């Protein structure tokens, strides 16, 4: 049983290291760019809407925005890392090489997913660090904040693996990012509270799977939340397991990998 999960630890860490060094080598695009865009969001929205009162007592909009932006940065980075890596390797015709390595499917998938998780986590953390200067360093519940950041990254990295396996080119990936992920993030509570939306939209907002993730991250950061905390605390880890399981399933089936 253990052997069907872990067979070749050195191989696993080599692959994980590759997935991390792949984006570290081009850190200007992969880390600095999203960080800068997050700071721009903060400057533009935060500066413009500084006076706007959020529904929660004593919390400024800038503070409200920080966990939202950290979540969004993590989501995009975590999703892009494995999907970009897999699609690029399809272009280079090197993806199939992985079929010859003595690694279990679990090791392969986990390496891809953790590579993306690390990038997402890094973006989220860097976003937080960069905003210390604007809003202070205080995190209400650091454990919740960082665990949520890791979980969100893990989920979207798993989805990124699935996207990479199924998609044939970067245009399709960008399409998914622009048409699905971006609106989901915008309406999932990155920039405003779901409860502030008009009724018909806020109903949909609560069903947005991104909402509990962003909401819990915000809870870790600010100590305030919307909706039912317990349900969300069960929901998010559940999604993480399901997303990873799905990535595993398609990887094991050889989608995009084998003829």
């Amino acid at each position, binding site marked *: 049983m253990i052997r069907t999960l872990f067979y070749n630890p050195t191989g696993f860490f080599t692959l994980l290291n*590759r997935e991390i060094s792949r984006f570290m080598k081009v850190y200007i695009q992969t880390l600095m760019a999203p960080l800068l865009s997050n700071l721009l969001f903060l400057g533009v929205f935060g500066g413009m809407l500084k006076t706007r009162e959020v529904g929660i007592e004593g919390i400024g909009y800038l503070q409200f925005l920080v966990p939202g932006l950290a979540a969004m940065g993590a989501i995009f980075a975590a999703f892009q890392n494995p999907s970009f890596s897999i699609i690029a390797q399809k272009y280079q015709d090197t993806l199939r090489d992985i079929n010859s390595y003595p690694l279990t499917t679990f090791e392969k998938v986990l390496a891809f997913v953790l590579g993306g998780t690390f990038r997402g986590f890094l973006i989220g953390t860097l976003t937080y660090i960069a905003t210390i200067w604007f809003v202070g360093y205080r995190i209400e519940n650091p454990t919740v904040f960082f665990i949520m950041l890791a979980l969100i990254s893990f989920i979207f990295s798993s989805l990124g693996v699935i996207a990479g396996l199924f998609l044939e080119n970067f245009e399709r990936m960008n399409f998914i990012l622009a048409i699905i992920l971006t609106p989901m993030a915008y309406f999932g509570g990155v920039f405003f509270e779901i409860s502030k939306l008009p009724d018909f939209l806020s109903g949909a907002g609560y069903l947005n799977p991104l909402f509990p993730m962003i909401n819990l991250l915000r809870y870790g950061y600010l100590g305030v939340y919307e909706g039912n905390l317990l349900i969300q605390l069960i929901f998010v880890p559940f999604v993480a397991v399901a997303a990873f399981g799905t990535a595993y399933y398609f990887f094991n089936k050889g989608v995009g990998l084998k003829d």
Partner: protein
Amino acid sequence: MLEIKNVSKQYKKGAIDALKDISFTVKKGEFVALLGQNGAGKSTLINILAGNVKKSKGTVKIGGIDLDKNELDTKKKVGVVHQEISFDYVFSVDEVLRNQSGYFGLKDNNGYINELLETLSLTDKKNDSSRSLSGGMKRRLLIAKALVHRPDLLILDEPTAGVDIGLRHQLYDFLNELHKKGTTIILTTHYLEEAEKLCDRVIVIDQGKIVVDENKKVLMKNLGAETLLEFDFSKDIEIKDIAFLADFNPRFEGKRRLQLKVLQNEIGVVFQKMADADLSFSGFNLEPKKLENIYLQIVNGKAA
């Protein structure tokens, strides 16, 4: 070392079988040439062994281990040089090889990597990006990559395509060396001289089926019996002058050159007959039998 039994592959439902019921065994230490025209199914077979293609039927055993039962254990025994040149261009030559070692569970393999770089004349490119290599260098890097984990079975899918002659001969020496050290090798190529020079055994696939599987020497003896004899004459000659050679498929090239196809053991007879007829020639050429000619005989259907 390798046991292939009744293996078939159909890429899509309704499509023709890329492989039809292929069976053969390769013993440890053999050097086998896998030949066949474009689209015959060579790469398909190799990709099945590499894990890139799922076979539709049959069983494969590598080093006694069944691919379907314990795939991971078989992977360490095989090194594959694929037909297409492809690298992860993000990485340098050295990184490519170190990563490859890592995937195969080897933590510190730098000694052997350096040795490979040295034998394949890539040492001074060690820190260059793999993208910046010339075509022939990439080919060599691909070979180094397949060897970092010292596989028992090395499979090469047209490793010399696009490689210059000097380098090709360097590669032959290298493969010979590996073979001597005990590595089992399967080589696919369209250069028949390569197979002739290197291999002990020849397998020919045609339209997904094995049509020949024979020891190279035996094959050349059995099939390559016809030798081309070429005579040049100092004066014009006509058909009637050589009527006594009618049995040997005479063919004129101009009026002063004659070609004959002769069985190995008939060469003496031809010379005797020409002497008897007092037909003297000014020049003479003998084209030795080549695997290439034999191969053409086979794929043109003459070998059935």
